[in-house]
């Protein structure tokens, strides 16, 4: 991957290596950027420390969840290891009124939006079907159907437009929508459809693609013949590629794209170039289709290490700070573990609860029959 730091334009890269917006090198060196420096010049050392904390804690949520799955406490988990910077950087660019449509891997985005990680575990433990209130944190429920949330996001963005919450110039009123998806989703019809709708309606939506190089076991070259960000140009809106392991660059480009949307200038596509360090899900075994050398290559680009190096280099943090974050992560992991095991199994008849506002009589009869059946057992464990 070549990095052209002198690039000023983020559109229409010439032939050859696509341009990649990068502000922080893998070695933790802050490099100047003509266009994007201005977008993060307000970031204080405190905020950098905050990003570091987000990155470390969200990674710990992820690794703890993988362990819990391996111990039989969760049915499944989709690890986001390696994608922390793309998620933290982009979600820290959001304002309160912006709305997020995630896939099932946006654990760090959920963290930044204030969703309790234990609630994420409930979904993967199979005791609920997404228990957080999307309206509370403007963070939609995880979408399992690949790419479907890009349509939801576009529709929601068109609603924002019709509410007049767009292009008014009022920073507390103008809202944008961000849709997260992966490289594999770009092969889905839903994503192309949402690009078309967003484009022709000038919808205030940012398409944030985390290109983690693998659609389960299919490599990127089996998904596309052009760099993904260039797809946007064909649909009539701008696209760019950012170093997805660089939290500052992700923050800068997402800020720009969101502001564009809030200002009524329409959609944009961000391709965050990153890597899925773990398996697709805990049910997958990546050693069957990819080489360790590739993993090693990306390990050197770790999103957390470079922030740490940057902070040490610029004396923003000392050993005590790193130890304090580590201790906080340990505490949080222990709490998560405890809360996960304590999550109550749902009552069997609760399946009837959340489908209809007014449950029809036939369903009520079925529910009553099931309750009678369960009551007929002599042993105490009536499983509720």
């Amino acid at each position, binding site marked *: 991957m070549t990095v052209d730091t002198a690039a000023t334009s983020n559109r229409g890269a010439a032939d050859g290596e696509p341009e990649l917006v990068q502000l922080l090198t893998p070695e933790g060196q802050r490099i100047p950027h003509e266009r994007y420096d201005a977008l993060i010049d307000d970031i204080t050392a405190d905020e950098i420390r905050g990003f570091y904390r987000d990155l470390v804690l969200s990674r710990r949520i992820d690794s703890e969840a993988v362990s819990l799955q391996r111990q039989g406490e969760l049915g499944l988990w989709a690890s986001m290891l390696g994608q922390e910077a793309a998620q933290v950087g982009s979600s820290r660019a959001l304002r309160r009124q912006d709305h997020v449509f995630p896939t099932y891997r946006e654990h760090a985005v959920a963290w930044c939006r204030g969703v309790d990680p234990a609630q994420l575990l409930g979904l993967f433990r199979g005791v609920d079907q997404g228990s957080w209130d999307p309206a509370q944190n403007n963070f939609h429920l995880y979408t399992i159907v690949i790419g479907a949330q890009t349509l939801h996001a576009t529709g929601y963005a068109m609603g924002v437009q019709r509410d007049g919450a767009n292009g008014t110039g009022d920073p507390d009123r103008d809202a944008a929508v961000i849709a997260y998806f992966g490289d594999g989703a770009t092969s889905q019809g839903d994503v192309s459809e949402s690009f078309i709708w967003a484009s022709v309606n000038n919808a205030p939506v940012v398409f944030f693609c985390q290109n983690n190089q693998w659609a389960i076991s299919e490599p990127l070259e089996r998904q596309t013949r052009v760099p993904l960000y260039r797809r946007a140009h064909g649909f009539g809106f701008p696209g760019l590629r950012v170093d997805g392991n660089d939290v500052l660059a992700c923050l800068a480009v997402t800020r720009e794209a969101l502001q564009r949307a809030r200002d009524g200038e329409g959609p944009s596509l961000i391709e965050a170039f990153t890597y899925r360090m773990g398996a697709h899900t*805990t*049910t997958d075994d990546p050693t069957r289709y990819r080489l360790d050398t590739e993993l090693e290559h990306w390990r050197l680009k770790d999103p957390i290490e470079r922030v740490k190096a940057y902070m040490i280099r610029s004396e923003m943090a000392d050993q005590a700070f790193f130890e304090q974050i580590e201790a906080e992560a340990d505490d949080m992991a222990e709490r998560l573990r405890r809360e996960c095991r304590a999550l109550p199994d749902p009552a069997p008849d609760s399946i009837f609860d959340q489908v209809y506002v007014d449950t029809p009589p036939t369903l009520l009869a079925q529910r009553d029959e099931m309750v009678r059946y369960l009551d007929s057992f002599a042993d105490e464990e009536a*499983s509720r």
Partner: protein
Amino acid sequence: MSVSQFNLPDVGEGLTEAEIVSWKVKPGDSVKVNDIIVEIETAKSLVELPCPYAGVVEGLLVEEGQTVPVGTPIISVRTGEGKPVEDVGAPGEGAERTAEQREGMAEQPAKPTSAETTEPAEPAEPERQPVLVGYGPRTASAKRRPRKPGTEPSQGRSDTNGTPQRPSTGNGEPAGAGDAAGEGAATGARPRVLAKPPVRKLAKDLGVDISTVTPTGPNGTVTRDDVHTAAAAVSTPTPTEAETATASAQPARERVPSGLGWHGEDREERLPIRSVRRKTAEAMVQSAFTAPHVTEFVTVDVTRTMKLAERLRESREFRDVKLTPLALVARALCIAIPRTPEVNTRWDDDAGEIVVQRYVNLGIAAATPRGLVVPNIKDAHELSLRELATGINQLAATAREGKTPPGDMMGGTISITNVGVFGVDTGTPIINPGEAAILAFGAVRQQPWVHKGKIKPRWVTTLGLSFDHRLVDGEQGSRFLSDVASLLEDPGNALAWS
């Protein structure tokens, strides 16, 4: 202090079992939460399991190499907390309950008496059925929870015939089509029969009263097979009828096939294609269909080599090494290769190049309980006979234990397969993918042989060499094979060549 057990979890959405590949801890070890304790292999992947407890390992409850069902306790850990035995992991017992409930809801025909007594019997696994998706195969006999006395549910339960009744909905549901079979004149308690219309027609056509047919279909439905079985029973004479039957019919009935294979086992058994078998299959198919194979044979008098081996075994240098004829063949191969480097080349299709390898990574095909693996000895050309012998023995032992690291199986340049150990003379081996040749070493037997003009008993063996005709021409392949044969016929040639 208390002891906690960790049950084998389902790590892959609906897996039923896993093999314990290797333990990373032993009794007495201290463990922390999330320390890796064991590596398991499922139908999907090799997975490391982190420990859910902190404490001291009390015991490993499953041995390496064993395959156990999900829910089996695999390790016990003495924890510092004063709690009673606690199970974490797959809910063995609970899972069965849930399965049982599901079954109950599905109104499977119940066997009320036996159902209430069979409590803790572990469901017998009839055979292994790894699955990749879904919730796994249902065990044939789920155990049933005891019912409250006198609370036979009013609806949706089976009657004593084991024929399920449909819940009466009381909304004027049309009478069951069971009437079509001609019953229905019986008492009001007469069970309704569940069957699809074509099955009912079949019963009618065959003259079977469908209400007498034992249903085996889902939810207690009568299937086509049930009707056929019932029809066959009707046409077969009953024991009382048999008494009146002619005596000539008797022997015919005695030879009723059991439907079983030998040893009274099932006629056919389906085995999952597991990792090593699958890899072997892929490698062999790839090799056989990309590399045009040519195989040549030579029968050679190896008496001198056998004598040499005998002498060496008695020497000081080899006193603690098991020197096999295979080691001598391996050495001969290493000496012969530089004289015909083509047999040690590699076809790089992507680069459009032939890679000449000036080193020998000698693969030794090893039969292991897990299947065939071909680990190789790196830089075998630099090794002495003693080192080669040691290397081969180690390689084979590691392979048999199933512990061959992946690195040992990669980068081979040429291989030997020792088919002689199975007592056969030779074979047409398939080249290990990525290599140019493979030598089959047959059994060494004493045979009558013309030696110095007389027929004498000599130690004779057959060598078979398969080579990739893209890389090796007939002339080169023949020269190489004859070189190896010459070295074995007269080991003294080694002095002249190396």
